[in-house]
């Protein structure tokens, strides 16, 4: 717990200056991992941490992989079922009031809040390209580390 405490102190000291806005809402290290999840979900994009969506969202998303945000990401049923179990088990809390599950992490209130100080020019930077490209700024995002210490905004 050493790192979250240090992080908490940093938030306290730099409140209003840094990105700390939603930092206390949850820790920014995601440790849950699964080999199949990492290999399959991580082949086209970062394997997004299961905590970033509630279980209902993951279930809905995993049931429509053949139409996955405009691309075909279909998996054989057995592999998909194994990944779904991992995602459900480690899913985040449902913070949405909507009855329809949010499928895009970037549309969750949590994501919007965490990134509300990111200027437009950062999102439009070709090196960032898409908000789905976490590691453009979260340089250790592939290791589950989304801490503020490890953000490098590309120039």
């Amino acid at each position, binding site marked *: 717990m050493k790192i979250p405490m240090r992080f908490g102190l940093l938030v306290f000291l730099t409140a209003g200056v840094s990105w700390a806005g939603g930092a206390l809402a949850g820790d920014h290290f995601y440790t849950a991992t699964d080999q199949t999840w990492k290999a399959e979900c991580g*082949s*086209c*994009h*970062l394997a997004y941490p299961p905590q970033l969506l509630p279980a209902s969202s993951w279930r809905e998303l995993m049931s429509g992989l*053949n139409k996955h945000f*405009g*691309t*075909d*990401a*279909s*998996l*054989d049923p057995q592999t998909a079922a194994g990944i779904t179990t991992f995602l459900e088990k480690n899913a985040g809390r449902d913070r949405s009031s909507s009855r329809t599950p949010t499928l895009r992490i970037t549309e969750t209130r949590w994501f919007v809040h965490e990134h509300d100080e990111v200027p437009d020019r950062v999102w439009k930077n070709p090196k960032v*390209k*898409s908000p*789905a*490209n976490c590691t*453009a700024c979260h340089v250790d995002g592939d290791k589950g580390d989304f801490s503020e210490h490890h953000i490098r905004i590309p120039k």
Partner: protein
Amino acid sequence: MHSVTIFRVVAVAIALSATTVASAETATDFLRSYETAAKQNAAGFTGFSPQRGETFFKTTHGREWSCASCHTPNPTVAGAHAKTDKPIAPLAPAANAERFTRPDKVEKWFKRNCNDVLGRACTAQEQGDVLAYLMSLKK
């Protein structure tokens, strides 16, 4: 058409020498299985063409992406996902020994990518042409 002949000779040679092949494990094995399928699909099958494969690879097919959109027009170098920018290792077997070694992977990606690029499954002829093209590339 010289390279096509070589592919066919290699394929036939393997067919004659191998008694049972449990699963395709080299690019040549895949090419052979596409040839078998293509012959079943079309009576007029005349072999695979790296040139046709290259054209297929580099052009769009009524949709936004071509194969080259992610794999780049040079499959011996690394590409990047057109949407997420995630790096993609080179596709040509000469540049990446892992390519075309696992039937489950090859099947999975052809299924997905043909749907994205063409809006349908690829034919064995198309798969064979593209693979013949990829196999013709040197690092």
